[in-house]
């Protein structure tokens, strides 16, 4: 029983990480039709900026309020990079899908190379509060606190995004834009501002995933964003392009499937099962769990 609980909670921790990356990716694709392969870069920037801030930013550190400040710095850095990417690189290329793919793939490769050139290719130990290294007993299972932190953060982010979509003017514009972007402009709304906003939200969530992923894995490396991005894309497709709630369901399914199959089968079999799940969803429900809506 305790093994099941442990696998479930660590699987949910992994799901939380996927969700944090996939939620922004999904909104960006749903609203702006941009397949952003550079999204992993925002995660990398968030992770490295948090790591850098913990050691160098006055007041920041690896514990207590200092750690919060470091994470806030990392999230701000990821958000800023996401906004700049949208304004400078993506905006001139809306409706030019091939060019977008080329630019974002190129940017993701260049971003990893830049992180490597600056801080080296090796994984670096990530500064984290002591309590995140410890475990908490849940129904007899000893669950790492780092995973629980990710779950809590993902639930908070999910609630915040849904509240934003439900209760704010820009949230309304985004929900409408995911349905019919052209009609939003035909009501006199400059939908490009909403594009920038969803990039900012996506960048912030991915950067938070980078910071908390560093806590979860204990290290940070330049390629971390890219490897998580693959599963985030799978989550987005399974959940439905543009659906934050769909991404949450899909992330849970993918995280749990991976964790259980890797444990009870052989290592790596979980990844294959995730790809099989993607294939099944594409065959049976190509629009994903939730279809193309910004909320469930």
């Amino acid at each position, binding site marked *: 029983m305790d093994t099941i609980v442990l696998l479930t909670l660590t699987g949910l921790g992994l799901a939380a990480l996927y969700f944090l990356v996939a939620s922004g990716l999904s909104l960006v694709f749903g609203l702006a039709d941009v397949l952003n392969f550079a999204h992993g870069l925002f995660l990398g920037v968030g992770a490295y900026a948090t790591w850098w801030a913990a050691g160098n930013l006055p007041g920041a550190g690896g514990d207590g309020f200092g750690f919060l400040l470091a994470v806030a710095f990392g999230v701000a850095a990821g958000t800023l990079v996401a906004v700049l990417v949208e304004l400078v690189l993506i905006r001139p290329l809306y409706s030019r899908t091939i060019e977008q793919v080329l630019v974002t793939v190129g940017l993701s490769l260049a971003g990893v190379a830049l992180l490597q050139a600056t801080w080296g290719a090796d994984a670096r130990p990530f500064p984290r509060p002591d309590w995140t290294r410890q475990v908490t007993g849940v129904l007899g299972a000893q669950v790492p606190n780092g995973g629980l932190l990710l779950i809590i953060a993902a639930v908070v982010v999910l609630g915040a995004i849904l509240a934003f979509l439900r209760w704010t003017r820009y949230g*309304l514009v985004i929900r409408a834009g995911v*349905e019919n972007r052209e009609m939003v402009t035909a*009501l006199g709304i400059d939908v490009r501002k909403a594009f920038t906003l969803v990039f900012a939200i996506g960048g912030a969530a991915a950067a938070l995933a980078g910071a908390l992923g560093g806590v979860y894995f204990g290290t940070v490396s330049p390629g971390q964003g890219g490897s998580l991005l693959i599963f985030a894309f799978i989550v987005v497709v399974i959940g439905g392009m543009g659906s934050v709630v769909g991404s949450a369901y899909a992330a849970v399914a993918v995280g749990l499937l991976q964790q259980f199959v890797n444990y009870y089968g052989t290592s790596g079999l979980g990844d294959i099962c995730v790809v099989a799940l993607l294939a099944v969803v594409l065959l049976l429900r190509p629009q994903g769990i939730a279809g193309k809506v910004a909320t469930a």
Partner: protein
Amino acid sequence: MEPILEVENLSVRIAGLHILQGVSFTVAPTGVTVLLGRNGVGKTTTLRAIVGLTPRGGEVRGAIRMGAQSLLARPTHRLVRGGLGYVPEDRCVFAGLTVAENLRLAERRGTTPAYDKVYALFPELDRRGRQRAGSLSGGQQQMLAIGRVLLNDNRLLLVDEPTKGLAPKVVTEVAEVLERVAESVPVLLVEQNLAVVRRLARGAVVLAAGQVAWAGDAQRLLLETALTKSLLGVGSAEGHAPAASGGPAGGKDGH
């Protein structure tokens, strides 16, 4: 009277198809001007070109002016904020949003939305505020699409086939609403239902194969059965202009 809109030598090419080929006409500053023609002649393309919704990669040439202002190459949201209201073909309400949210989306900062006017015209929208727009009937969706545009002041309304696919009773209701709306703002209307055209239109522009085939008084056009039949393929006593087998513009008029 100076026209509210002047379209001059408008040509639109989309995906290699020359859909509009030098279209020129004007829209009167009052009442309803109707854009007629068989399916596929470029009526919707004309409206979309005026409001700046030609697909990316499409080529638009010519001149479109509202008063002294050139509309060509201006972004759609600016044209709409400048007083060009657009009610698209097939309504295009946001199905996942409630009726109230669809209306709220059309609100603009710095102006007071005319909910009183909209609810006076469409009391049903007030009652169904919390209902998802996707669950409304076709007629209710059409009223929402028109109501959404009427929340703000407009200098000209572009309305694309508002009675398409609606029951006869609802067609009458929509025509009544447009008649009332046209008392305060000029309307450029694309319409296939000749009974509605007869009721509403003062001026008429008939497109054929991407060009203006006839322009003048709408009532005179409808009185001349032979002319109506030659231009629209239907007698003026009949209800709808029929679908064409496809002209040089090619394809469905839905660009």
